[in-house]
């Protein structure tokens, strides 16, 4: 297995995609830093400034929204092998096909965590510098800011894992992205309107994500729209576990069906 993981790591780092990923990670962090420098009080509409707990949360919350980006990286793990027709060679080297998928999951989760770490470091540095430049301090204690940044970094790792699972299931990067994206941005919001589904919200991907990142804008928005109180979210670690569970389900489904198909 370690040979397969080493090979996948080499495969990833020998192509150009990882350089774009590093750029995207730095860019996400830098965007957060930029928002911090502008200051939420100058947003349209104006929001409480960085020196308030709410203002700091708003800026970090935008970064939380960008956790979806590394899923893009994950969906390429299996899809690229189909697109470039290396899949047959890979399956010849790993005829027990699930081992190759597992190696990709391990490799890309590592890459996704690295992506998250880069983002968190850049964003964190930006936040603290922005506050200092404004001659004030962040509205949250530094320990809490760091904890939220770590949770966002972990979310990015988990989303990369989700990307690998769904990419393996659909074998096509665009299809996997459309399914993941439309779920998070459309389907789940629509589901919330179905009576009774709201009770399940903490266990749905969006609710689990909110639990993991600690940002509840979607839950709050739904609550505002439906006039019902938002359900209580799971603890962060459980929310993370629920997301990993969805990724595992996708990977298992991939092993059960598409991975068994003939390679012609």
């Amino acid at each position, binding site marked *: 297995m370690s040979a397969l993981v080493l090979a996948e790591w*080499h*495969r990833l780092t020998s192509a150009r995609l990882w350089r774009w990923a590093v750029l995207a990670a730095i860019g996400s962090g830098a965007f957060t830093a930029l928002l911090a420098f502008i200051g939420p009080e100058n947003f349209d509409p104006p929001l409480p400034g960085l020196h308030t707990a709410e203002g700091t949360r708003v800026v970090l919350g935008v970064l939380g929204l960008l956790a979806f980006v590394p899923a893009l990286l994950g969906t390429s793990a299996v899809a690229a092998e189909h697109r470039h027709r290396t899949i047959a060679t890979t399956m*010849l080297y790993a*005829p027990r096909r699930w081992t190759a998928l597992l190696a990709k999951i391990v490799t890309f989760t590592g890459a996704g965590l690295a992506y998250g770490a880069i983002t968190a470091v850049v964003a964190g540095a930006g936040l603290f510098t922005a506050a200092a430049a404004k001659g004030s301090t962040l509205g949250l204690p530094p320990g809490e800011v760091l904890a939220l940044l770590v949770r966002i970094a972990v979310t990015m790792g988990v989303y990369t894992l989700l990307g690998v699972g769904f990419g393996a299931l659909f074998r096509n990067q665009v299809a996997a992205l459309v399914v993941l994206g439309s779920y998070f941005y459309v389907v789940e919001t629509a589901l919330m309107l179905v009576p009774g589904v709201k009770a399940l919200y903490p266990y749905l991907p969006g609710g689990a994500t909110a639990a993991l990142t600690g940002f509840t804008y979607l839950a709050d928005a739904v609550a505002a729209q439906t006039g019902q109180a938002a359900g209580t979210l799971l603890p962060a670690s459980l929310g993370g576990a629920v997301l990993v569970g969805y990724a595992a389900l996708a990977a298992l489904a991939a092993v059960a069906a598409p991975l068994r198909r*003939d390679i012609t």
Partner: protein
Amino acid sequence: MTAVEVRGLGKTYGPVAAVTDLSFDVPPGEVTAFLGPNGAGKTTTMRMVLGLVAPDTGSATIGGVRYAALRRPAATVGAVLDTSGFHPDHTAGAHLRVYARMGGFPRHRTEEVMDLTGVTPFAGRPTRGLSTGMRQRLHLATALLGDPSVLLLDEPANGLDPEGNAWLRGFLRELAAQGRAVLVSSHVLSEVEQLADRVVVIREGRLAVAGPMTGLYAAPGVLIRTPGADGLSALLSGDGVTVERTATDTLLVHGLPADRIAAEASSHGILLHEITPVRPTLEQAYLDLTGGPA
């Protein structure tokens, strides 16, 4: 030494019976040519042997074991497949290093196979820019990484220049001489003729013939053009000799060497316009087998 055994293999795609009840062996130490018209089922058969396509019936084993059950598959079987590709960003060297790691092969093995297959001069170039022949060499290098005792090559000569082709023939002969089992599919029969010890010919997914190359040929004969065809025909016909009239002035004689025929004709005063020993070609034998144009 490892051999490939194909037994009762069958695969249908919807209404198409790609392969039907196919059995043959690929013995070690020999080059076996795998021949058949387009769509005969060669690629499908190779993919079934390699576990990429699940057969509907029958089985294929390597040294008695299914491909997927091999302990070290890439170190046992090397394969070149006609539709495989490379990641366009990867250099030729990076591609080989990925799979060398995957197979757990030592680092220096990458350099070795690059030298063996002539990949070294373009090792640093991204695969997106490689020519067909370069890609084919890189496929071969990938197949050889594990120093496998069985090679399954689907049209490996595709896109190689004449030098490359001659080199490949010598190379495959050498690999077989080292005791490896080599199965090569091809459409270039003149090249197969110089390369293979055995042939497996399939037609519409079924076995047409399998065996040593020599058994495939019709007996050599002598073609004679003469105004005295009637006389010569009567003269030569007899024990173990067959004379076939292919045109009014043309005979095809089997069972007598050219010099004996010439001597007979001359001693009876029969004029010969042409006397040519004919060696039947693999192409003719193949076309006879597969029902192509005579």
